[in-house]
């Protein structure tokens, strides 16, 4: 028995989205590169201040970093390096940005994805319950509760959590943990930031609002009534349009938001992730690091969107059909 998953149109759609993503990433890199060049102040101020004022030496440094060529050439060579996995060296540490990015990027991805899951675990049940309108006051209470959760300032929540777990339960010594002593594998230490960011990233309310609206709309569709009339489960029939699609949409839409929240949480918990790196780089004006982080973040965002497209293409027969027509 064959089911008509139309592979070709889905592939076409995904490929198209992929090319758009590549194009957007290129544009992003051009944009940031130009800002970098147009920004006031010399990027080499670190070296120049420390070292000599001798123009010849400055020229030499410039040549060393390739800053004496035209912007277009600089960009192309930077792009060339990028393709070879070379983001340049950090001004501050002098180490290659790429290696550092990969190291911290994984940590941040764990944090982001983990807290996304926590957020969804809170948001989905509440959205489902309140869309049923079985008990208006329960759903209102739950929604209010979720709104309060998502209004909590994440840094304060972090301190509360740390305080409770260190002072009250003495689960781990707060000050000894962190980047300096290496990444300690302690499950509490591992889970705490994830849960804190999951609760306090401020997107619970929006996810609930979106999901509830979608689910309410789907549950009032004729086909749900028809499914009920024939004795089938309404959840089976509303799952794709009422839950799967809004959840995917929200995941893709909220990834950037949670990445932003990670900056704060990593600061609070000394989590050696991208956010901390970005914070440090912003303080030091470490341009290559900032560039690398931006590109990395943009890639993550587009990966999220790409997976959304794939899910949509598989779920919705109409998109795949349209893809065929286009």
């Amino acid at each position, binding site marked *: 028995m064959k089911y008509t998953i139309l592979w070709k149109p889905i592939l076409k759609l995904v490929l198209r989205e992929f090319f758009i993503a590549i194009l957007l990433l290129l544009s992003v890199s051009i944009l940031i590169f130009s800002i970098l060049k147009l920004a006031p102040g010399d990027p080499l101020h670190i070296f120049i201040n420390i070292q000599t004022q001798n123009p010849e030496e400055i020229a030499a440094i410039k040549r060393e970093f390739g800053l004496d060529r035209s912007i277009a050439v600089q960009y192309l060579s930077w792009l060339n390096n990028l393709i070879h996995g070379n983001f340049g060296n950090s001004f501050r540490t002098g180490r290659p940005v790429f290696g550092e990015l990969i190291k911290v990027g994984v940590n941040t991805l764990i944090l982001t994805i983990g807290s996304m899951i926590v957020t969804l675990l809170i948001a989905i049940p509440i959205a489902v319950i309140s869309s049923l309108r079985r008990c208006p006051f329960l759903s209102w209470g739950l929604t209010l509760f979720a709104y*309060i959760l998502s*209004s*909590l300032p994440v840094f304060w929540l972090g301190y509360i959590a740390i305080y409770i777990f260190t002072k009250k339960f003495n689960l781990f010594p707060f000050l000894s943990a962190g980047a300096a002593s290496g990444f300690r594998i302690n499950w509490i230490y591992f889970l705490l930031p994830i849960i804190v960011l999951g609760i306090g990233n401020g997107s619970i309310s929006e996810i609930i609002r979106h999901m509830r609206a979608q689910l309410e709309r789907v549950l009032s569709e004729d086909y749900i009534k028809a499914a009920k009339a024939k004795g089938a489960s309404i959840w089976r029939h509303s799952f794709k349009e009422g839950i799967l699609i809004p959840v995917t949409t929200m995941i893709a839409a909220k990834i950037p938001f949670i990445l932003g929240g990670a900056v704060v949480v990593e600061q609070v918990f000394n989590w050696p992730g991208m956010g901390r790196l970005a914070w440090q780089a912003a303080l030091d*004006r470490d341009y290559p690091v900032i560039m690398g982080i931006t590109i990395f973040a943009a890639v993550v965002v587009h990966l999220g969107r790409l997976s959304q497209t794939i899910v949509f293409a598989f779920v919705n027969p109409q998109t795949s059909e349209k893809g065929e027509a286009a």
Partner: protein
Amino acid sequence: MRTRYIQRGAEVSEFSQIPIWRRANKKDLIQIGFGLFVVFFVLSSYITAVLHLLPYDPLKINLKEMMQSPDYRHILGTDFMGRDILSRIIVGSQAYFMPGLLSIIIALFFGIMAGLVSGYNGGMTDSIISYILDLIDSIPKMVIILLAIAFFRPGIYFIMLIVGITNIPTVASLIKSKVIFLKKRNFIEAGKALGLKTRDIIFKHILWYNCKAIVIIQATLGMAEVILIETSLSYLGFGVQEPEPSWGNMVAAGKDYFFMGDFFLSTAPAAAILISILGFYLLGDGLNNLLEWRRKR
């Protein structure tokens, strides 16, 4: 069962003739009330500042009265430099409000324009606008802000300008999908057939009559987000700098005393953040329900 006989000819009042506060859901009204209270509080902070009604000078250091717990003189106590926390919280709301308004106005204005144009025209215009908006949307907000901080070392207004720009895609896509939805309902075509000007159709029929709720909820959500971003930045040390009070840097300043068991220093501003974000959320939600006519049968 109590039955009410209605005289022949007398009509039961129509939905449209029932005043808005009576047909509204009570819960929505509670939410709106709470939201309005928060807005009023923020606005009143400007008045108190202008009229010098603040209980204490928020910047005045008084080392004699350090770390006092709340009493009748300092309603919310004092911080580690003896500054009155209540005064600092009141003034702290000014750190985000005006800049936040700027960012919301930018986001709404450009978002509405982009959404209307790309939704109404479609085709090439739509593709170009969508591409630009996608470009903005490609980078997480926080990263863009850090980028700007690294490159330009900007003030809070500049940061909020950037926040406004990064919010344009959200507003635009919402407006655009609404326009497309309305187009399906044929009444753009009907307006054209009647001989209405394109300008009237777009601004009057689409924007004024059908997008009010979106605009309002985006404005309130935008405000909530602005608070989040401003406090986060201040907390990270990039936004409003000490000694100028901001809720974010107040929490950050209080964090060291947290582990000495003095919660209040950072909890008071954190509560202010919580209440005001919640206020804007609820205001938006309530107004949305009211304007979207979530009517009961």
